[in-house]
């Protein structure tokens, strides 16, 4: 296959300065990619160049610099459209990140359209960001929040989900990929059934945008969002995609400059999407960085990324399964490259500390998904989450460090 021939992980690692660093006397083994990803030189250098030579505000200036910055940001919006295969560039809204995108929809769509007695469906494996926003909206507007259950492998029970759908279901908010279990939800099937019941669907793509080619038209979701910093771009910028018919009808999210059409002291008319949802000066340099990150990802290609990450997942799953006393939490058939696990007699926090001393960064805790932890009868897990720049050698290091954990806690 072409992908394997051109994909050279050693060469790719050279693009990431952080992967050349040492941690506690060892070369850094960074396995917390589901939390945030390291940045490649093209992103760092593009932002550096922009800040040094091209920086100014957007939209407002009559001068050349501002015109240039505006054009650069517009170009990134178009890149985002291509990245998600949205049909219109104006369907791309810049936010602070996925969390703000979800809050935007809960506020601008949820507050406007949902009425007492309406129902929202989420899944049992949501990150707090795609749970609390809806729970609070439900509390405020007297809505019913329903939770679609998962089986012991962490897979959504489609027949149970379908049973929850009814004429009062107004909204379905669901994660594309679980940040704890790695489960890839069958979004196309979900949107099909939800739409059939007349519901609107938001997909939390924080964990899918980094790992797979997303096509919002194919998924047919009404909203999709992701964070820049999880796709090798900067923090402080994210994207909300929304179908234009919704964006046009929704209320603004915040009020201020850049989102208005005309203002008098008596009233204001608002700009069209996306400007309607982007009050104030945006994270200009970060948007530029996000554009560079998407270019970088396109350069590698998702075909190669998926193949390498899948290989890592299989290799790590096999190796971890052989560690005595280790249990993998989340064994979905369709799974992204992250593995949550518990080790008998050792708390994940202690695993994290011992691994840190070996230069290995993993996540330990409830991963902002406390109800999920409860569902699986645990209080915390250790999680190794892989990116395309990770290697089998790093998995081997993880395994030997886990052997050290077992020795300390024998």
């Amino acid at each position, binding site marked *: 296959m072409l992908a394997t021939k051109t994909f050279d992980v050693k060469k790719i690692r050279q693009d990431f300065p952080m992967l050349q660093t040492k941690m506690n*006397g060892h070369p850094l083994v960074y396995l917390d990619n589901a939390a945030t990803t390291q940045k490649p030189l093209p992103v760092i250098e593009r932002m550096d160049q922009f800040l040094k030579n091209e920086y100014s505000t957007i939209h407002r200036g009559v001068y050349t610099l501002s015109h240039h910055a505006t054009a650069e940001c517009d170009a990134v919006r178009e890149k985002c459209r291509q990245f998600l295969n949205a049909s219109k560039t104006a369907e791309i809204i810049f936010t602070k990140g996925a969390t703000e995108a979800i809050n935007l929809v809960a506020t601008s769509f949820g507050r406007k359209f949902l009425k007492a007695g309406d129902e929202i469906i989420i899944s049992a494996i949501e990150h707090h960001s795609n749970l609390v926003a809806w729970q609070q909206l439900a509390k405020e507007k007297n809505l019913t929040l329903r939770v679609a259950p998962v089986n012991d492998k962490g897979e959504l029970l489609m027949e149970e989900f379908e049973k929850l759908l009814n004429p009062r279901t107004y909204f379905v908010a669901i994660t594309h990929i679980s940040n704890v279990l790695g489960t890839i939800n069958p979004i196309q099937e979900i949107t099909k059934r939800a739409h059939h019941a007349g519901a609107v669907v938001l997909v939390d793509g924080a964990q899918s945008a980094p790992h797979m080619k997303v096509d919002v038209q194919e998924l047919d979701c009404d909203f999709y969002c992701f964070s820049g910093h999880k796709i090798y771009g900067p923090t402080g910028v994210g994207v909300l995609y929304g179908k234009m018919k919704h964006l046009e009808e929704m209320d603004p999210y915040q009020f201020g400059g850049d989102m208005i059409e005309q203002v008098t002291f008596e009233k204001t008319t608002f700009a069209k999407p996306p400007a309607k949802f982007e009050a104030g000066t945006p994270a200009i340099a970060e948007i530029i960085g996000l554009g560079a990150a998407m270019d970088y990802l396109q350069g590698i290609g998702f075909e190669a990324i998926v193949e390498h990450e899948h290989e890592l997942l299989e290799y790590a799953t096999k190796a971890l399964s052989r560690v005595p006393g280790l249990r993998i939490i989340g064994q979905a058939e369709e799974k992204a490259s992250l593995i949550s696990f518990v080790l008998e007699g050792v708390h994940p926090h202690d695993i994290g500390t011992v691994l840190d001393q070996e230069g290995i960064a993993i996540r330990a805790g409830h991963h902002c998904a406390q109800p999920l932890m409860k569902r699986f009868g645990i209080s915390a897990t250790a999680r190794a989450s892989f990116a395309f720049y990770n290697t089998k050698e790093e998995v081997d290091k993880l395994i030997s460090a886990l052997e050290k954990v077992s020795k*300390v806690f024998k």
Partner: protein
Amino acid sequence: MTDKFHGTNGAEKFKSQEVRLDDLYQEVILDHNRRPRNFKKLEDANAYAHGHNPLCGDDYFLYLVVDPSGMIKKVGFEGDGCAISKSSASMMTAAVEGKSVKDANALKDNFIHLLTDNTASETVRAAAGKLKIFEGVKQFPVRVKCATLIWRTLEEALKDRSQRKEEVSTEKE
């Protein structure tokens, strides 16, 4: 490596391994983690508090029987958490049982001082007695809260009922 324009140089800071895992996971600590003492709910408790760390999920219930003269007659705890939090809880219960509320509070202040202040004096260290083994936690700043959680919970349990919150979080200090 700090200069006017570049701040702390992380790369330099993280390059070397200076801390020792053995200082953190000492045999006594591991033993209390494996076999925590007083690890039970006290049905006759008249003072109790709930302590948790929302960041890592350490979660304990502490039960005390305090007699009218202010003596701690019995201590018990339940819950789940890392080796540091659990062993600290176990050793705390052993240390305060039989002490007056006043002495237990003094021991608590001393312990927290020992773990959070780098300039802790020899007097402080000596007063900590067996609990001194938790000094190694200081080399692991993110773990200090694990060791102090149960002591913060004790502080809450021993407060006058009128002022008690009954729930302690490491993130609300």
